[in-house]
């Protein structure tokens, strides 16, 4: 197995506070890696440093062996890395289908072709297929802002897969989603992982969801990795139990 993403000694401090403190790990081709940890343990900051939203204070990030540290998010996205955010981020004033077309349109052609080319950038069929896959096809023409929270969450995830990424980093995809939709979301993610060979890194608080979805789990506390391994191993690790149950 080869590593899609290599993170080495990544560090991010805000003034005196060290949010990410020398984190190193590899993400292997085709795996679903979970990252868990108590609130404030640096999970989202870690994502933001890997993805160029924040500039890391130190350390390196490699994608397929290529240095991408500090690269702009839009360039990184066009190299096949997509993400979702912890808080819901769809475009409420665009239709559901337009949200998906937007998520794919920058990946093909030039700026000029997007100016003079077709309005849907040739992506409407792909968008409808993705909507059907996420069972949102009956809502295609609605404004995204009119959907329920759970439906928007599904749309948010669908947008991350619209461009067929090699690597997707999902920040709390299950947050605020009801149990029925949660099962559906988990099945969709597993299907994409199996069919497209996409690699996932998932930050999640919902333990059942993580344990059922991920093959390997990293546990972060106070900006450091304190445990790593398969779900059963992590669940019984003394340091993990201590980090979660507190001092």
């Amino acid at each position, binding site marked *: 197995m080869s590593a899609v993403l290599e993170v080495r000694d990544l560090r991010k401090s805000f003034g005196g506070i060290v949010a990410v403190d020398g984190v190193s790990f590899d993400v292997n081709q085709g795996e679903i890696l979970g990252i868990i940890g108590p609130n404030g343990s640096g999970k989202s900051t870690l994502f933001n440093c890997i*993805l160029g*939203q924040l500039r890391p204070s130190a350390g390196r990030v490699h994608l397929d062996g290529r240095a991408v540290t500090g690269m*702009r*998010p*839009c360039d990184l*996205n*066009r190299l096949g890395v*997509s*993400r979702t*955010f912890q808080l819901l*981020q*769809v*475009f*409420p*004033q*665009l*239709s559901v289908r*337009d949200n998906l*077309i*937007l*998520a794919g*349109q*920058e*990946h093909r052609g030039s*700026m000029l072709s*997007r*100016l*003079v*080319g077709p*309005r*849907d*950038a040739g992506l409407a069929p792909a968008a409808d297929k993705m909507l059907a896959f996420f069972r949102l096809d009956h809502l295609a023409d609605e*404004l995204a*802002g*009119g959907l329920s929270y759970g439906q928007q969450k599904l749309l948010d995830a669908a*947008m991350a897969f619209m*461009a067929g990424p090699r690597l997707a980093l999902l920040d709390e995809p299950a947050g605020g989603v009801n149990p029925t939709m949660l099962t559906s979301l988990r099945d969709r993610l597993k299907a994409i992982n199996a069919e497209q060979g996409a690699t996932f890194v998932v930050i999640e608080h919902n333990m059942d969801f993580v344990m059922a979805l991920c093959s390997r789990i990293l546990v972060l506390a106070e900006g450091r990795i304190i445990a790593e391994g398969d779900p059963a191993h992590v669940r019984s690790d003394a340091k993990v139990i201590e980090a979660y149950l507190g001092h």
Partner: protein
Amino acid sequence: MRRRKTVVAGMALALSAAFLLVAPFLFKPYGIFILSTWAVMTIAAIGLNLTLGYAGQVSLAQAAFVGIGAYITALLTTKGWPFWPACALAGVACFVTGWALGYPALRLQHHYLAFVTLAFNTLVYLVFRNEEWLTGGIYGISNVPRPSLAGWSMNGAHAFYYFCLAALALVSLATWCLIRSPWGRAFVALRENPMRALSLGVDTRRYTLMAFALGAGLGGISGALYAPLVQFIDPTPFALGLSLNLLLMVVVGGSGYFFGPFLGAIVAVLLPEWLRFAQGYYLMGYAMLVIVLMVFCPTGLLGLADRLVTPAAKAVPAAAREVAA
């Protein structure tokens, strides 16, 4: 609901177009001049609407671009150039200037960007006033000729009015195509949520820059029509006041609405003329009207219309309506 809105909008559009076509026969020459000014200013406001309404950047430099377009056209046509290449050059020069200004300036946001563009407007105004060898200083440039179309002269007030109207129609069509293209979708995305747009591969810096430069280019086209309309230009009209006025047009009409600039320009260009009977009080009345509108309907006149046609529960303060449709 969407159908009812389409019907209302279609009827309003057809009535307005019919009115604009017969208007010259209803007004004296001064009225026709004012209507021509409306068409020309609407073009500049459409440009600013791209910058402000679609890309979300506050610019106080639109008057400078109108001025640059007007001076280029005036200088070249008084030296014997035909109108068309002069007009094209005015648009291109403003596009390039807008790009060059935006490249460093768009690293700033909101009121910082407003300050930089304000400074640029002042700078351009000073160049117009002080570089006498080029611009004629405060004496300006007179006898700017009006264009001709296939040997057909636009000298008369009627002819030039229809010429301005045709130019407005062309610019509107081009802008409509732009905001219905994938660019329009990217513009809405970067205004709504730049961070998410960036994570989806949208090069927000480049799109913002293009919106800014295109807005400046339309300012240049507007200036290219303004010079032959008034036939005498001096620095005064292109001071900061016009930039503020154009900003007012966009905001009052409804920033981010396609037809916002058309309505806004009516308020800013025609309303003061109609309120002239009130003499010294008209400015006060006008200011009150604008303040009341902004307090009760910050989304502008079209935002107000939107609220009246759409039931409250479903109303989205949509700037993206044309794009979303």
